[in-house]
C-alpha cells in the first residue's frame, strides 16, 4: 500500500531516529554557534535588537545590492554561526548615506522587517542621533595623523555629514605643528554612519566605527 509520505513508510523506530538526529544536529550546532561568536556586529540602519534580529533575519541578502554606496556586506563564518549571512555595515567599503538624504533602501528591501523605518524629518543633523544610531566612531590617537605626526589632516571631519559629531581642538598656537587641528569625536551626536572611517587615510584606520552605543528600534509588524 503506497504511503503518503516517506514518514508513513517509516516504522516508529525510524521516526524517532529522524527526530533524534535532528535534535543531535541542533545541540551540536547550538554549541558551535555560541562558542565562536566574537565581537558584536555593526548592523545596517534601523536594526531591531540583536536577539530579535537573529531570530527574524531571513539571511536573504536583499539589503546588500540596494545600498547606493555598497556599504553592506553579508557576514562570513568568522564571527559565530548565528551571525553567518546576516548583514553588516562595513565602513571601509562604504558608508551609510541616510544622514545625507534620508536613504532607506535597505530598510525598504528587508522582507523580514528586521530593519525598521527611520524618519529624520524635522530634525537638524546634530539631532539625528536621537533616532538614527547604528554605533559610534572613535579615534586611536597613536595612529591619527594630527595627533601622532602633528601634521594637518581632518579627512574625517571633511566628510562627516552630521553637524557636531566631529569637532576640532588645538591649532591656535604658533610655530611648526602648532596650527594643526585635531579631531574630537562627540559620541552623543555621532550616528555611526562610517563616513569617517571610510575617508581616513591611514593604514590601519585611525578612526573606527563600532556598534557600541547603538540604539535599536522595536520590531513592528
Amino acid at each position, binding site marked *: 500500500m503506497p504511503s503518503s509520505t516517506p514518514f508513513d513508510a517509516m516504522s516508529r523506530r525510524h521516526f524517532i531516529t529522524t527526530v533524534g538526529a535532528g535534535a543531535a544536529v541542533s545541540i551540536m550546532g547550538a554549541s558551535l554557534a555560541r562558542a565562536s561568536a566574537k565581537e558584536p556586529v555593526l548592523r545596517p540602519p534601523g536594526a531591531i535588537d540583536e536577539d530579535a534580529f537573529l531570530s527574524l533575519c531571513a539571511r536573504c541578502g536583499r539589503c546588500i545590492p540596494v545600498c*547606493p*554606496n555598497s556599504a553592506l556586506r553579508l557576514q562570513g563564518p568568522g564571527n559565530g554561526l548565528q551571525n553567518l549571512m546576516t548583514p553588516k555595515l562595513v565602513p571601509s567599503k*562604504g*558608508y551609510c*548615506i541616510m544622514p*545625507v*538624504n534620508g536613504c532607506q533602501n535597505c530598510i525598504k528591501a528587508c522582507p523580514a522587517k528586521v530593519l525598521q523605518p527611520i524618519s529624520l524629518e524635522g530634525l537638524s543633523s546634530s539631532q539625528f542621533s536621537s533616532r538614527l544610531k547604528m554605533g559610534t566612531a572613535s579615534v586611536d590617537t597613536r595612529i591619527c*595623523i594630527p595627533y601622532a605626526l602633528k*601634521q*594637518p*589632516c*581632518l*579627512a574625517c*571631519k*571633511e*566628510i*562627516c*555629514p552630521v*553637524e557636531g559629531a566631529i569637532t*576640532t581642538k588645538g591649532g591656535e598656537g*604658533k*610655530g*611648526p605643528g*602648532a*596650527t594643526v*587641528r585635531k579631531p574630537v569625536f562627540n559620541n552623543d551626536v555621532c550616528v555611526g554612519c562610517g*563616513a569617517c572611517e*571610510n*575617508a581616513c*587615510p*591611514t593604514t590601519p584606520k585611525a578612526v573606527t566605527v563600532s556598534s557600541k552605543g547603538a540604539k535599536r528600534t522595536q520590531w513592528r509588524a
Partner: protein
Amino acid sequence: MRSLSRRRFLEIGAATSFLALLNERTTGAQSTPEPDSVVVARNGTPSELASGAVRSLGGMDSFVGAGDVVLIKPNASFSVPPGTGANTSPEIASTVARLALEAGASKVILTDHRINKPGPLTVQINGLREAAEGCGGEFLVLQQESDFETVDLNQARTLTKVEVAKAYLESDVLINLPVLKHHDATGSSVGLKGLMGLVYDRTVFHREGLDATIADLSLGIRPNLTIVDATKTLMTNGPRGPGEVIEMGKVVAGVDPVAVDVASMALAYSLGYQDFGIDDRNAYVKIAGELGVGDSDPSSVLARTFEVDVKEQIGPCPPSTRKGAIPAWTPYASLSVASVALGLAAMVYDRRRTRDAK
C-alpha cells in the same frame, strides 16, 4: 595690540592695503588689464561676474580654440545643496561651460573626484550635474582607478608620482573653477588645493604632508585659467560646513594659479579671518611659489591685480531638458513579455511537431 612677528605684520599690512588699493582702482570692463593679471570682478550677479572676469582677461577665445576639448574642474565634492559655500555655485559653473562652448569648444566636461559618495548622487544634490548638462556639457563622475593614469612629477620634492585623471591628460584646455572657502586642515582652500580633485588617491597627501604634496601637485596639473567663485564664501568650519557664509559677491580670475590663490585669500583675510592668511597656514602657496609654479609674493601679486566693475550680462543656461529617465522596471517587463512569448512559441512548435509525427 598683541605683539606680532614682523613677517605676520607685513602679511596683514599687505592684505589691508590690498583692499584699499582695490577700492581705488575701479576700472571698467573696457580698460585692459594685462593677460597675466589677476582680475577681481565685483558688482554683478554670479554669472555676470564670471563672464566679466573672463572678458577682462581677453575673453574665452584667448583660452579656448575651435574644436578644443575643455575640462572644467569645479569644487563638487560635498553632498550639500548650493548656497552653502562648500561647492562651486552651479550658476557660475554653467556660465563658464557656456562661454567655453560659445568660444568653439567641441566638448565641455565638468569633473571632480568628489569626496562624498556615491558620486552621481553627490553631484545631483549640489546641482553641478544639472549645471553641466543644461548647457550641453557633461559631468564626468570619476570613480575607479582606471579613470586615472600615473604621471611623474619632475622637480617635485615629496610627491614624485601621482595618479591624475585621464580626462585631464586627454583634454586640450583645463579651467580650474574652485570656490574660495575655509578649510580646517590647511587654513583655506582655493585653486591649488582644488587640484586634488583630479587625483585618485588623496590619502597619500594626508600622510606625506598636505602642504608639500599640494605644492608638488601643482607642478603636474597646470590650468590654463583659474576662476574662483567668491560669491558666497564659507568663512568657518570648512571645507564642508555648515559655517558662517558671507556674501562677498566677487569672482577672481587669472592665468597664474598661485597669484590667483594669493589674491583670493587676501580678500578673505582682509575681512578679519585669520585662517586665510599665508604663514603657517596655507603654507602650500609659498612652497608652490618656491617651486616656480607662480607668483606667491603678496606685494607683487597686488601690483598685478585689477578690480573690475561688471556691467554686461550673459545669462546661465536654462535648466536642462533631459528626457525623463527610463523607469527601472522596463527591462524586467520586457523580459517577462519575452519569456511568455518564448514559452507560447515553444509550446505551439512542439504541438505542431507531435501532431505531424502522429
